[in-house]
């Protein structure tokens, strides 16, 4: 979808190129994150794709067409663009801001109105916000408008320059999650610049790691980069928590689950003790027809029926799609030293620290 061939950018007066003969191929529908230290030319690379910055040499194609052969403003109307500062027009309402590109393209009024409604719903903006001005919105809401504006004319490609860098961490995580879901539904080709390696591996289906001067060090799926860094620069850039970052990308469902010291509530106390002994456990999990009720300490399992016990709740209950990193967190923080996993049909199983460690060393 996007192809960069030997692209070089030397800014006037600079003694070294910002980007030097970079070649990058971004297939249709991929979510590519460009990440690297400051001065690595990631933003310059992004801005050369829509010609906000003109390359010094090399060739850039979008959808098979050389960008240098097109009028810049026409090229840009076919490419979504989101920047960190958002850049909403302060003298236009939210509605007018979202309608920017459709208006430039000369869509008729009804079509624009329908599209604006559709877009604001897509990014989770209430209809009551449409009449407001950007200054009346929170940072998170402003960036939602920024995304809606970029998507309004339904461009096949979206360029994003640290789009969630200016909002607070909690809102950022929300927006990241929502945007990733949005991308899955819309199937756009996304190029996403960030300096945050966590964001890069979490958001991208492919990650391009750039070094100072726009040198491409590694370009691969995030799991692959974390498992096999191409060189010292990449491993240093990935940092010391590489293992944890890999866990963050793996769903709980990818690991083998143990049934654990768990019995149905209809079991006899003797059976329950046998299960605990078999697992060497000092606690017992209780199920009611496959539904997880909670756990009780071994000392409370006496002679009376299990149904008379008062089970304690597991503080963290994971779903199969949660990451192994969350599972690890649950293991080390819970009293029972396990992470329990519950799916649509009820109790699925549990992970202990050894299971998680197995996954990471595989």
């Amino acid at each position, binding site marked *: 979808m996007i192809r960069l061939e030997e692209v070089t950018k030397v800014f006037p007066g600079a003694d070294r190129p910002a980007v030097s003969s970079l070649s990058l191929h971004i297939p249709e529908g991929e979510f590519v994150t460009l990440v690297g230290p400051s001065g690595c030319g990631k933003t310059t690379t992004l801005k050369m794709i*829509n010609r*906000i910055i003109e390359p010094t040499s090399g060739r850039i194609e979008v959808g098979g067409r050389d960008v240098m052969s097109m009028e*810049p*403003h*026409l*090229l*840009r*109307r*076919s490419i979504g*663009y989101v*920047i*960190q*500062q*958002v*850049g*909403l*027009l*302060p*003298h236009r309402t939210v509605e007018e801001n979202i309608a*920017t*590109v459709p208006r*430039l393209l000369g869509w008729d009024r009804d079509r624009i109105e329908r599209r604006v409604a559709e877009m604001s719903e897509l990014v989770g903006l209430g209809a009551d916000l449409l009449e407001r*001005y950007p*200054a*009346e919105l929170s940072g998170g809401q402003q960036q939602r408008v920024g995304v809606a*504006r970029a998507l309004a004319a339904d461009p096949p490609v979206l360029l994003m320059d640290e789009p969630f860098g200016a909002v607070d961490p909690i809102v950022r995580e929300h927006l990241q999650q929502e945007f990733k879901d949005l991308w899955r539904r819309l199937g756009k080709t996304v190029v996403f610049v960030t300096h945050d390696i966590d964001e890069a591996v979490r958001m991208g289906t492919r990650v391009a790691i750039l070094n100072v001067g726009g040198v491409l060090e590694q370009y691969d799926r995030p799991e692959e980069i974390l498992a096999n860094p191409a060189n010292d620069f990449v491993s240093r850039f990935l940092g010391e928590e590489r293992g944890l970052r890999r866990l963050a990308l793996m769903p709980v469902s990818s690991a083998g689950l143990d049934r654990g010291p768990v019995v149905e509530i209809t079991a006899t106390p003797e059976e329950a003790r046998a299960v605990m002994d078999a697992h060497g456990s000092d606690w017992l999990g209780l199920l009611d027809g496959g539904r997880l009720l909670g756990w009780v300490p071994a000392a409370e399992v006496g002679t009376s029926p299990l149904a008379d016990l008062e089970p304690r709740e597991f503080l963290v209950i994971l779903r199969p799609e949660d990451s192994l990193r969350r599972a690890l967190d649950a293991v080390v923080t819970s009293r029972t030293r396990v992470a329990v996993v519950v799916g649509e049909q009820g109790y699925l199983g549990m992970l202990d620290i050894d299971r998680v460690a197995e996954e990471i060393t595989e």
Partner: protein
Amino acid sequence: MIDFLGQVWDWFGDPANWTGNRGLPGLLRSHVFLSAVSVATAAVVALPVAVWLGHTRRGGALAVSLVNVGRAIPSFGLIGVFFPLTLMFEPTSRPLGFWATFIAMVALAMPPMFVNAYTGIREIDPALTEAARGMGMTGRQVLTGVELPLALPLVMAGIRNAAVAVVATVTLSAWVGCSSLGTYVFVGFAQRDRVMVFAGGLAVALLSIVTELTLGGVERLVDPLRPMRRRRR
């Protein structure tokens, strides 16, 4: 003191001061005309250049310092310099003093208009214009749809400052024989008529205030965020 103010009051009440070419309406008209023509000419010259330099973000610092040099030259001096020079030209339908004052007033009006328009456009967040370009606006669309509306209040403030300064200073035209409200001041001095001097000065001061208030109102009307501010109130 009370006595003096009473005489001024009477002066304004005297029907003789409301008719003829020494009458208030006539002199007011000349004063406003000379001011308006000067401010309009300065705007036509200074604003497009300022807007263009601000839009392209080039050469502005140099231009601003050049304009500020202009600011340092007193209008009185300029009239003094240009009046003898205009004597060398053929007479026109306007008195020679008109053109000398006109040149000095254009020079007086340009700096505040230029500096305000230039900074008004230049100070717009570059991220904003970049986003606008990134959406696919042409240079002209960025200028007319983003930069000009956002800079408009500051541009208007420049025009207002210039207009107030010009209205006050056009008074000097009477010195070189072009009638304005300044005529009362200069003639009054020559005739040692302190009531007339005071009345002339008062008329100029009132006209300046009216100019300030009127253009201040226009400034608020062109505020692109006016709908939002009104709603907040």
